[in-house]
């Protein structure tokens, strides 16, 4: 009885999800920022105005602190009347099942039947190599071996601070199936500039259709990756088998498509 009552009292309507603090749909959010205004009474009003501009209701400054002359930091709590259609998002974002290393190897033997060549690097001026090493090197990450350890892959890891052009040249030279790039420094959108440059070079080389273009890094989301012209993006929490699953599934799908295409072409279907 109480259990069912709890259920009904607290059941969330996924069509209209609001923030939660301690009462269903209370919509409470915390917002924090610095404003370039002096630390004074009028400043808190500026913070409240900014919160209101975000559509927040009953904002309250719970903390404000002098940063230096002309700069003040604020913490604001407020009710956020906005809601989100979570049902729609769930439908859009199927939760993917990744294969284990063994499964990837079996799948590849079955569906691809040859060594898959991948070339990876942390490119541009970025010296962070731990992410790409985690994906490619034997040692891998958190107990999960990198692609080097997979029977089905031949992996080249060029390391870090690699010019995009060098990475692409290597990919061409070894006839890579996939180019893997890692980006860690994001300040002033460095990663965006650098990833865009890589896509440009790949396209200029005329090999865009022939390779999978994969990027990853702590602040690289799948959305961003796709926006920039990559096939996929991987962020925090990625294990090598996630990457491997993607590559083999995608290559298999492309092979099928390519076969169908050539069959179609042969049949004069274009």
């Amino acid at each position, binding site marked *: 009885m109480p259990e069912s009552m709890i259920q009904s009292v607290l059941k969330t309507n996924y069509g209209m999800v609001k923030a939660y603090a*301690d009462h269903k749909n209370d919509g409470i959010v915390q917002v924090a920022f610095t404003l370039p205004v002096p630390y004074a009474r009028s400043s808190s009003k500026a913070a409240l105005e900014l919160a209101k501009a975000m559509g927040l209701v009953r904002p309250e400054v719970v903390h404000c602190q002098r940063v230096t002359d002309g700069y003040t930091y604020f*913490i604001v709590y407020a009710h956020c009347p906005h809601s989100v259609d979570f049902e729609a998002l769930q439908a859009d974002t199927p939760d993917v099942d990744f294969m284990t290393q063994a499964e990837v190897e079996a799948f590849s033997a079955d569906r691809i039947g040859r060594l898959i060549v991948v070339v990876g690097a942390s490119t541009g001026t970025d010296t962070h190599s731990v992410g790409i090493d985690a994906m490619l090197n034997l040692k891998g990450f958190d107990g999960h071996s990198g692609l080097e350890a997979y029977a089905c892959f031949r992996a080249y890891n060029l390391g870090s601070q690699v010019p995009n052009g060098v990475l692409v040249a290597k990919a061409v030279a070894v006839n890579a199936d996939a180019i893997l790039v890692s980006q860690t420094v994001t300040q002033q959108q460095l990663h965006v500039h650098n990833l865009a440059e890589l896509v440009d070079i790949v396209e200029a080389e005329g090999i865009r259709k022939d390779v999978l273009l994969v990027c990853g890094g702590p602040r690289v989301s799948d959305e961003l990756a796709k926006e920039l012209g990559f096939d996929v993006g991987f962020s925090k929490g990625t294990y090598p088998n996630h990457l491997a699953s993607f590559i083999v599934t995608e290559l298999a799908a492309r092979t099928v498509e390519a076969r169908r295409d050539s069959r179609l072409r042969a049949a004069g279907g274009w």
Partner: protein
Amino acid sequence: MRSKLGLDAGVVAEAREAAALVARRVSSSLSGKSTVSVERTVARLLGVDDANELEVPLPNILVDHVRDHRGLSHGVAYWLGNAMIQTGKSAPQLARLVACNELDLCQLDVVAERRIREVITLECERALENLKDAQRKRQEFRLSLRESPPPLVYVLTATGNVYEDVTHARAVADNGGDIVAVIRSTAQSLLDYVPFGPTTEGYGGTFATQANFRIMREALDEWSASNGRYMRLSSFCSGLCMPEIAAMGAIEGLDNMVNDALYGILYRDINMRRTLIDQRISRMVNGYFDIVINTGEDNYLRTADAVQAAPSVVASQLINYYLARESGVKDSHIAVGNAFEIHPTVTNGLLIEWAQAELTRELFPDCPVKFMPPTKHMDGNGLRTHACDTLFNLVTIATRQGIQTIGVPTEGTFTPHIHDRVLGLECVRYVFNSARDLGEEIAFRQDGFIQSRAQQVLRDALQLLRYVVDVGLFEAIEQRTFGNISRLVDEGRGADGIFETSDMYLNPFVALMLGDTTCQNQ
């Protein structure tokens, strides 16, 4: 274990004796008195529950009825015993009849007092035995599961809505909390009755009702069973219904109760005598049912300066402890309180806190001492609060506290949001694990800052206890000894609920519970 603080055993012994004397004198000064809430407790333990259509609880109707008929000095047990003999009905049935005006307890013929005593004592014994049975089953359930090693991690929930509290409690359990305490709505303490039924509206907390206890207990038991770790439930034996809440806790299988002898006096302006009589019975119930009690010295540090008030904390801990012992509570079930409340800008404040926490630990070697987080000086800056909580967690683990109430980043702002508890718990887990054996690894410099501070606080506490012995506890409270707050013996709420007991007064539970625990103690 050797004293890390180089405490003088003589001073310790003397302080203990003084506190024990204070407690004894309080008890004897209050003998021959009872209160309406004690009588309602008797009714509750005999199974009286429920409320009438105006939501007046039957225990209140029953006791008010007896009072209105000027029968209260005999005790409600007396009248119930007699009525049982006369009508063959049970206490709940009798209460219901009284509530519909179908029975006048005090107008029934009265049998011989010995007869009444026999019958009602038997009823009380049976009632206790039933509850003990349930308690034993719970203990088996608990022992069949994992439990965290101390410090047990104590987390409040306080949404105002018991069903939301359940959600918060699940978050607490999922994130490593060991004890969930549903804090009470602001209004409850001064109500001279316990609200009835599940409640979904409360300010600053959720009403402690028996239904709410049950809802939370079920939710925690379900979690415990499916996660293999036992979650404890706590509430507050305080306010005008102190002993009734203890009875409700026993009935609903609570494991822990905040239960201070003086809090109601100082922080709720409840009459001294009323509180001291009520606490005696509430602690008897808690002691008998092996419910761990927690004292509230933390509060003093919120209205007085923590550096200066340290001796009063120790004095109060000892008095609270001996008052609990007077009620038959075992050492293993008395969690004396202390808090990390020194202003963050005090130089070497951490050392002072460390000294005090270790002092509490050493003065009560067999008690699960309870340590409470910084709150007074916390503000809207959650990171600052979190930094203070981190050092608080460090001192907790390094001084082997038995129970720790966690700090949360929004401590200075509002009753925490669901993720605040999760983030607070995350910090506790981090520090407890990362500093697990720190306490054993370090020794304090002989006669250094920490040792000297602890020794000084102990000496000053002894001074204070001598003073309390001299003037008596009532006068000491009037003189702002605790929390810098003054209360007068004849003022405060609830004084009208005290009454003198007659020679015929009956409350068999006292003898049954004390007798029993005294045996267990030996």
